[in-house]
């Protein structure tokens, strides 16, 4: 009972933050509709009604896009085992899960850094470099005709290595020169993007044949990630399982190991960590290596397994969404997974929202920004909803 109450009190602020942000998003939908605005002066009630209608239509499309159409689900249920109907019914929800995979990885990456007191804004660049590493190893190993399991392991290792190497730079500079990781990771994001652009347009090994755009070769010819559902039309693949496994691993590492203890101590009080004989500098570097490595694996899975080709835009702002996810999830692996599932569903559902109601998916970035704001300023949500909130401890906010 007390555990349930504890869980509820943990979930209350994030849940309300997301809810309030979605409500503000609805207002934005209403008041950026020129028809609504035009009707407002002479028929305010009708206009607002129309606006609410638009917002409801948008969000219902969002929900159907994210979780599936109830009609189709009941069709599938009634059909017995018709795989085509099941595929149609389950596609939205499985796509949502697939969408959440990169968010889980980078969310975990940012959380490990947060826990160590490092504001890693570089998830974007580390993810991209991981994607470059994964793509390169996929072409190298797959091209050499090695068996799929070996290639997949190599892709994961390649992604981890590139991501970790990219994250090592800000970690090292912070320890050796006291350089703010906020500044260095921002700058490294841009350098990563330019580097990927450069490699994809100048390096024949990965650049797509007969293309001038910065796009990699089609990667499914080298390796495919095995699906995890019995219906082949559904794309959900092992990356989802790996992401969950990493969440468990990170949780174990942070709270059940000596190194994790050192990282958390360094994150909360660097001076005390030094006093207690922990290598504070090595904690920071270790945290950045882990953080970058996890982000890099996410990038490798995304490019090789899901998009099946690499371009500089493969990140889609995942590094920034991950900051929102880490904050909402309280930098706890379980919280990160839960939040990433919600955000993944929103992102996936946003596509249908755009298709049906022409509401651009970019609204979700705005909503994410609001969520971060509400999480970071709990009393703001409190004032909006008239419920008391206190700032949470142990999370940079």
């Amino acid at each position, binding site marked *: 009972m007390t555990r349930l109450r504890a869980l509820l009190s943990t979930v209350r602020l994030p849940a309300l933050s997301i809810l309030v942000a979605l409500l503000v998003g609805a207002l934005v939908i209403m008041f950026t509709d020129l028809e609504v605005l035009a009707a407002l002066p002479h028929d305010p009630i009708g206009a607002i009604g129309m606006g609410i209608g638009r917002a409801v239509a948008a969000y219902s499309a969002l929900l159907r896009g994210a979780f599936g159409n109830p009609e189709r689900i009941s069709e599938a249920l009634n059909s017995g085992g018709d795989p085509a109907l099941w595929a149609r019914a389950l596609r939205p929800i499985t796509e949502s899960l697939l969408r959440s995979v990169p968010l889980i990885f980078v969310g975990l990456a940012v959380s490990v850094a947060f826990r160590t007191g490092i504001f890693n804004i570089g998830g974007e660049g580390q993810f991209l470099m991981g994607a470059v590493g994964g793509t390169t190893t996929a072409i190298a190993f797959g091209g050499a005709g090695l068996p799929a399991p070996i290639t997949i392991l190599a892709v994961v290792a390649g992604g981890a290595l590139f991501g970790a190497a990219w994250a090592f730079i800000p970690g090292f500079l912070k320890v050796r020169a006291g350089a703010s990781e906020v500044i260095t990771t921002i*700058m490294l994001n841009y350098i990563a993007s330019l580097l990927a652009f450069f490699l994809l347009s100048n390096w024949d090994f990965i650049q797509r044949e007969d293309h001038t755009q910065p796009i990699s070769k089609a990667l499914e010819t080298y390796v495919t990630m095995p699906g995890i559902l019995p219906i082949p039309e559904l794309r959900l693949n092992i990356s989802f399982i790996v992401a969950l496994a990493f969440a468990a691993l990170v949780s174990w590492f942070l709270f059940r190991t000596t190194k994790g203890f050192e990282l958390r101590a360094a994150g909360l009080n660097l001076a005390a960590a030094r006093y207690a004989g922990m290598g504070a500098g090595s904690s920071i570097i270790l945290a950045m290596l882990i953080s970058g490595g996890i982000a890099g694996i996410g990038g490798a899975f995304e490019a090789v397994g899901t998009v099946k080709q690499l371009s500089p835009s493969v990140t889609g702002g995942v590094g920034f969404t991950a900051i929102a996810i880490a904050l909402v999830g309280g930098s706890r692996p379980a919280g990160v997974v839960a939040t990433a599932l919600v955000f993944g569903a929103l992102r996936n559902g946003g596509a249908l929202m755009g298709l049906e109601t022409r509401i651009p998916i*970019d609204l979700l970035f705005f*909503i994410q920004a609001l969520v971060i704001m509400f999480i970071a300023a709990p009393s703001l949500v409190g004032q909006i909803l008239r419920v008391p909130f206190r700032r949470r401890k142990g999370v940079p906010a």
Partner: protein
Amino acid sequence: MSAATLVTGAEQVAALRGARIRAVLFALFALLALAAVPGAGSAVATFSFWVDTVGGSDAAFSYPVAATWFLAGGVMAAIAALQLRRGAGFHWRRGIGIVAPLYVVAIVGALLNGTAANLTVLFTGTLNYAAPIAIGALAGIISERAGVLNIAIEGKFLLGALAGAVASSLLGIAIAGPIAGALMGAGVGLLLAVLGIRYKVDQIVAGTVINLGAAGITNFIYLRVLQEHSELNAPVNILPVKIPVLGDIPVLGSILFTLSPYFYVAVVLVAFFTYAIFRTRWGLRLRASGEMPSAAGTVGVNIIRLRYGAMVLSGALAGFAGSYLALGGTGGFGMGISSGRGFIALAALIFGAWNPVYAFGAALIFGFAQATSTLLSILGVGLPPQVLLAVPFVITIVVVAGLIGRVRGPASAGQPYEQG
């Protein structure tokens, strides 16, 4: 020995080590340049300028590449020697200021490899590009000098650009765009201040909120509103103007005096705020607020009000600079129009050591890298454009890593102030 030169032991040691590292680096560059002399052979680089107006008659000049390499290498060697002899007291930034153009001339000459290049466009491109960067950096300087970290310049650029484009389109007056941009920026600055000061939100988190939210909402409005109603995104462009008399000076007139009005405004703003920050009562209090707010708070300076004011001012400047992106000749707002220039402004502010004049210099260097990249790709030179585009970001990392000399930002930037 005056008090200002009293440096403590460890700093002295570090400074000396830094000086030695610089001397070695300079010597290395000198060697590189001298090594390039034989390779250049008898190659000649040819450049031209527009004499009167862009596209009119041009005047060309040529120089031998090998001699330029020699000159650059020689001067660099001299600088390396001076650096070694004078140690930490050597004004190496000035040295670089003298020698860097020589290197640029040599490198560009070598890259051109015989093709003729027009420099008027290169220079006007540099200066026009630098204008919003310099103003954005100034905005960041004011807020950080007051003690509030500012990574949200990018977001303010985007929102300023959108506001400028829409207001200018609706009202049809040129001046409406920049004013709307500034007002929008001021509003965002106020929001940042409320989050950071009132709600004590971490300033990095608050900046991330603004950047992410600005990207989301401007894309959203562009796609949902502006795309269908292009009349809302047809602003009065603010194009380069030729200043009477001065603009008629041959060659120079079309470079220095036929620029976007934003550039002239940037020069005035930088001069004005340099004076304001370092010479006025407001500036003294602003700097105290960024270095040690309690020192000012205990003598009756209202830090909270000062910071609110600085944030609104900073936002207005950034929003104003942002309006350039939509009004400076691109024909309106486009998705992601700032394309990282807000962060380049942040880079300029760091490279410029929180000083408006130096930051302007940094903006010019970044602008030159950008304009050179454009020029080279037009001329089909085989240097990948990404190399030059990465210059601001790489320089910033080098600077914050303290590889070539330490810069010190305001000591209390990033910490919320609590009275008592």
